[in-house]
């Protein structure tokens, strides 16, 4: 726990130095994207790693946040310090509504229903032209004259810090432990007084809130929001980050986000082979690090005689 906290603090501190050390705007842009994805991955991890259910609909919250910020900015002219938190809050509301239905379900049903919500929202965004401008999207979202990537970098770094703080507090609280209990064994959790639904809801809404913040930032940074924010490719990227880094840890998703963002960019060198190789790398990672980077590190530590790491639990049946 303290080790985890120190690693996270060190990460934030190192990141804070980046704009001072690098002036290359392209690298800063990659830094911004990596942090943006780090928030998203952290938020998805709250659901996948701590509720223990696999959500394929997390783009619902990214999108809700992005559209909220875009609309507030283009329609009402609100400034960024207002639109981004509001984006988080509106997303949290969406999280509450969607969670109320989906969290009753488990396993594959949860997976597909969350996906369905994201798709429904995408289709609505694509067709409700009066509000969302449909497939034409919302362009020209205010950037308040920020032309230096460094400024955007500090904004997204601040958001990352907020996200990590909230996630850290949640995960290491009594409620966070309850969420783990639900994930590990629903029956035990219930019998010690944990309300599986309510606990999962807290993690789910927190995840939605963080994804909404990320979405709000995205709207201003890219300055364009269209229905594709709800689309599956974003989801795939998030999943790869969380699982590659290692779910159920706070460091894993951050590491995953940074690695995947950089990997995707540096594979540009490979031209046409880019995504083919990317697919192969993803497969190789699963085959050689089935529990992600953090799982691998924990395993190494175990072999070196440190505290034994939990092994992959085989599926349990309760009779």
């Amino acid at each position: 726990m303290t080790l985890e906290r120190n690693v996270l603090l060190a990460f934030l501190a190192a990141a804070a130095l980046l704009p001072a050390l690098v002036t290359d705007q392209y690298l800063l842009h990659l830094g911004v994207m990596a942090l943006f994805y780090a928030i998203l991955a952290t938020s998805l991890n709250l659901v996948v790693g701590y509720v223990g259910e696999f959500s394929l609909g997390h783009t619902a919250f990214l999108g809700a946040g992005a559209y909220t910020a875009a609309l507030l900015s283009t329609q009402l002219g609100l400034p960024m310090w207002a639109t981004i938190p509001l984006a988080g809050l509106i997303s949290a509301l969406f999280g509450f509504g969607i969670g109320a239905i989906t969290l009753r379900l488990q396993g594959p049903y949860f997976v597909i229903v969350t996906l369905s919500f994201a798709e429904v929202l995408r289709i609505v965004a694509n067709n409700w032209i009066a509000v969302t401008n449909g497939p034409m999207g919302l362009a020209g979202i205010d950037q308040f004259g920020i032309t230096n990537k460094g400024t955007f970098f500090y904004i997204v770094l601040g958001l990352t810090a907020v996200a990590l703080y909230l996630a850290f507090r949640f995960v290491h609280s009594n409620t966070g432990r309850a969420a783990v209990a639900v994930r590990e064994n629903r029956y035990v959790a219930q019998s010690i007084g944990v309300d599986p639904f309510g606990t999962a809801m807290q993690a789910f809404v927190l995840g939605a809130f963080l994804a909404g913040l990320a979405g709000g930032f995205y709207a201003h940074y890219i300055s364009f929001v269209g229905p594709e924010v709800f689309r599956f490719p974003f989801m795939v990227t998030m999943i790869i980050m969380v699982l590659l880094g290692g779910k159920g840890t706070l460091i894993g998703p951050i590491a995953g986000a940074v690695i995947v963002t950089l990997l995707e960019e540096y594979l540009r060198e490979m031209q046409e082979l880019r995504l083919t190789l990317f697919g192969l790398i993803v497969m190789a990672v699963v085959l050689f690090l089935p529990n992600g980077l953090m799982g691998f590190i924990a395993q190494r530590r175990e072999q070196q005689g440190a505290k034994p790491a939990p092994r992959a639990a085989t599926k349990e049946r309760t009779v």
Partner: protein
Amino acid sequence: QDTIKIGMVEPLTGSVAYNGKSVVEGAKLAVEEMNAAGGILGKKIELVIEDGQCTPANSVNAVEKLVQKDKVAALVGAFCSSATAAIMPVAQKYKIPLVTGVSSQASLTEQGNPYFFRAAETDALMAKAFAKILANDLKLTKVAYIGVNDDWGRGGVEEFSRDLSALGAKSVLTEYFDHGTTDFFTLLTKLRAAKPDGVFVAAETQDGSILVKQIREMGLDAKVFGVGSWATADFINLTGSAAEGIHAAVPYASSMDAPRNQTFVKSYEAKYRIKPGKYGAAGYNALNITAQAIARAGNTDAEAIRAALYKTQYEAPNGVYRFTEKGQAYGFDAVLVRIEGGQPKVIASTPVDAPH
């Protein structure tokens, strides 16, 4: 630096990769020809192509990389209007001229972005050019409109239905479908019930070929016309006999009979063993326009290139391109083709006027 770099962002993967690849082919041909003729400013042109997947975020990533890492002098792309809308502010921020050969959403040139140029038709321009010919030649009285549910499809349907209605052709049905839809029988059942004598379709090869085929499979014999890259061998092959007799309004067809076009088609066919279509020509033109502007500018300074772009007078296979001060191209020819015996036959040709 011993080359002049031009950056290109197109969808090379994902569901519009098919069209993106044609744009890239056209562009590569243009660069090859120019380099064979000695390049510009005494240097070779180097085309740096990145995959933007037609999504805003990926296209922005690609542009950041092209500008910061490759230090390109100018940008060409991105295919989909949404992706182009997202990279326009980036181009403006870095003060790099951006030329699109494809993105057709009308509002793009209305944003007052001084670095943006559109070397392509808009739906409004196409409609204005052909509505009259269509209404008169096909004797349309009741028209049904079907468009792919994106900015381009919606734009096409709106513009054509406005102009055709003004000419007295009643609009009896308007429907949109999502890109990637494969079965149109339900839509066509409604269409059959509406009894139109003409069906307007705004769809690209992939959706359009299936749609046109199914119009015939439903036993409908209404006249089919529309916009999209239909004047291509791929489209005609995929559509089969159902393609016979349909009309397409396109900014380019390989069967246009200008001599400049014949040389273009010849070299394109020699290189790719297929005749160029709308998107191949778009890539070719966009690249030539950009490179010629750099040549005229005399250096790679952005302001000089921008100024040179405004003075464009590019002799394309399909007419002459000029730009308005908003950066909208005009002056080039657009054609109406009819598919006959598996070949696109030009039946009308008209230069595209500048919008007011």
